[in-house]
């Protein structure tokens, strides 16, 4: 590479047109679909208004894929499907075929190559998750590892459709919660204020911006050992970690600090009830690689309490809404504490302003 070469000017093409890559039956019937059903778990069958049909086989992936895995999926698509794939928002891959007799050989091949077929309808789909220790600059845990451990535990629920309704799980490596809302959310929850390296703050951090970032105004400028730095009012601090990204010397992660919390009842669909945010169930679980067994155990308890007790079509949050939180904590064997009482803005609206009480 010559240092004198003018770099290439980008061609600002923006979002690529999907039509050039789309399966021909999808392209032909774009905007003209009539109905669908699911002949078996992992398979969708769509019928167009003109009678055209397409079968979609959905398979789980590890999301963080090496090129060999991607090429293997391409080989499968070329040999057993029709050379086109798409991905779902939860990193499942979908293969489209235009005749039903191609479905079984495709499934057999995917399973033989280690790709679970499922994730449709009332199953537990792949966990949407974040980057973790593999690539993030502020992670409390490794979402990929947590997700691998949990998907191993829930494998049967991915390949079957035996849940009351779909279960959408998310994992996030810090409280920013890039993984998003979920029926169950497994998120890092910090438990200690940041540990400040005062030697570095002045050089690394834009101090007013860090002060402004704190949601509880617990950070103020200070001189420490003769150096301009920042200090934290630890009585006010809610240990959210918001100061850490703009100021890495304010280390929020640590063996004693970084814990995992589990939340339930988030839902993004408008079906039946309005969309909801997930709610805290358990905090202070250990951040325990490589398999996070304590987290997996709590998720298992919640998942199977839901499976055994919810009515068909009830999402996690709707089931709890019906049976009430006392019954939820009873059925899952989990503890209700003062930390479940919201203290943030609008907290009063989360309280029971009625005599609707479950016994």
């Amino acid at each position, binding site marked *: *590479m010559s240092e004198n070469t003018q770099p290439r*000017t*980008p*061609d*600002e*093409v*923006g*979002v*690529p047109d*999907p039509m050039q*890559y*789309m399966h021909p039956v*999808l392209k032909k019937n*774009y*905007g003209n*679909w009539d*109905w*669908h059903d699911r002949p078996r778990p992992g398979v969708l069958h769509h019928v167009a208004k003109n009678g055209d049909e397409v079968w979609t086989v959905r398979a*789980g992936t*590890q999301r*963080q894929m*090496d*090129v*060999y895995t*991607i090429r293997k999926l*391409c080989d499968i698509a*070329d040999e057993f499907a029709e050379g086109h*794939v*798409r*991905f*779902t928002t939860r*990193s499942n891959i979908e293969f*489209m075929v235009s005749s039903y007799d191609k479905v079984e050989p495709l499934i057999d091949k995917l399973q033989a190559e280690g790709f679970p077929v499922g994730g449709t309808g009332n199953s537990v789909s792949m966990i949407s998750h*974040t*980057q*973790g*220790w*593999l*690539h993030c*600059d*502020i992670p409390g*845990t490794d979402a990929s*590892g947590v997700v*691998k451990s949990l998907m*191993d535990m829930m494998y049967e629920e991915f390949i079957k459709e035996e849940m009351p309704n779909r279960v959408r799980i998310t994992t996030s490596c810090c*409280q920013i919660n890039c993984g*998003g809302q979920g029926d169950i959310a497994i998120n890092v929850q910090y438990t200690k204020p940041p540990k400040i390296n005062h030697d570095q703050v002045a050089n690394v951090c834009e101090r007013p911006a860090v002060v*402004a970032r704190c949601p509880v105004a617990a950070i103020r400028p200070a001189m420490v050992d003769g150096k301009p730095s920042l200090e934290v009012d630890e009585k006010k601090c809610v240990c959210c970690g918001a100061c850490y990204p703009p100021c890495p010397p304010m280390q929020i992660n*640590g063996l004693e600090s970084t814990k995992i919390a589990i939340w339930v009842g988030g839902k993004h*669909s*408008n*079906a*039946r009830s309005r969309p909801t945010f997930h709610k805290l169930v358990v905090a202070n679980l250990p*951040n325990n*690689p*490589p*398999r996070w067994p304590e987290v997996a155990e709590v998720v298992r308890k919640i998942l199977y309490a839901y499976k055994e007790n919810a009515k068909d*079509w009830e999402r996690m949050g709707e089931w709890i809404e019906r049976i009430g939180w006392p019954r939820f904590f009873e059925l899952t064997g989990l503890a209700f504490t003062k930390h479940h009482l919201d203290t*943030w*803005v609008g907290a009063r609206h989360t309280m029971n302003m009625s005599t609707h009480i479950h016994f």
Partner: protein
Amino acid sequence: MDDTIRGAGGQLSWPGFITGLSTRDASQPASGGPNDVKAEGNGMGKHATPLLDELESGPWPSFVTGLKRLRDSEGKQYAPMMNDLLGQLEHSYEERLGFWKGGTVSVFGYGGGIIPRFSEVADKFPESKEFHTLRVQPPAGYHYSTEVLRKLCDIWERHGSGLIAFHGQSGDIMFQGCTTENTQKAFDELNEIGFDLGGAGPALRTSMSCVGHARCEMSCYDEARALRSMINEYLDEMHRPALPYKFKFKFSGCPNDCVNAIHRADFAVIGTWRDEMKVNQDEIKKYVADMGRKYFIDHVINMCPTRALSLNDDDTLEVDNKSCVRCMHCLNVLTKALSPGDDKGVAILIGGKRALKVGDLMGTVVVPFMKLETDEDFEKLVEFGGEIIDFFAENALEHERVGETIDRIGLPAFLEAVGIDPDPNMVKHPRTSCYVRTDDFTEEAEKYFAKHGKKSDAAVAAE
């Protein structure tokens, strides 16, 4: 502008040439099932990864096995990088800490789109000391031919780590693991086959749309067209970050909201319809026969949130379309019998975001309905998107999302700023607080009546 490719602290990057590798041809990786790769004591000085090795067992596909395939790809430029990457990741598993820091890396002409990562433990793991991510915008709806996927893989084998995520939570294809020097090369090749960088930092972000029109009968508008029209119009805001904070558009074809727009997008476009839903009564009867009447009543009729459904004595369905809120439940259950109506369009909800800094916000209705069919409709949508971006750019505080801005100034001020009249569909219920000055209530009511073609009581009395 020729000095944009720099590492942290403004130093020109270390070339990162690979040394000490076997040059014999081995195009196939030493791969296979779990645990067949032993990490210790071979010629390449592979890092032992006993903790990560535990993530190779179990039925779900293992990302660790994939990382090892890359490490074991002898002769590939990325093999040493992936060996040290595995070493650093194992180190993270031991210490329960991350060891990446950010910095400044970009490609010529753009300010954003690269997520720079420099190792804090580069002394132990020098080959992966630079491990940047290219955020690349996917085709709307995530459609790929195997041909283009293979091209993406080839480019990333030449210049990157061989590790790609389909897709990140931002909606981008995440090309993870690139040296500072190779970032420009990788981008150039990706760009030459029609791909462009996505958003990062305080900027317009990469967007997402559901499968929609391509394969879903619930779809109420052309999601891919809406996404591409919007994002491609305002690309400058993505590539040259200059907004107060991030701004996200998301496009869902129906209220099932499969791309999570209400939770996550500053500007959520959700398909819906105004006229009556379509009912095929013969199919309804078949569903009732298949499910049984009790199941049908319990799981369709009784789950309707606005009690808009009733099962007739002859097993046909009665729908009170004026009470229906288009929640989608009955359509989801009875896919063959029920469909959206013909008068389709979109609702627009503004202001969704996660916790930082005021707490979670969902988008709230700002446009209850607009048609989205003709060229003019799409232009109008894009124009409105631009107005909201402009409002955000001019009024938001630094690091404030538009939902927070609206909370700070109140929805009435926001509506006035963007020229939209209040509508009862914007609220769950009218205000309960009496702390408001209402001396122009009558004039406001006149405006409402004028808009709705009605005369107010006051006007009628005056006649």
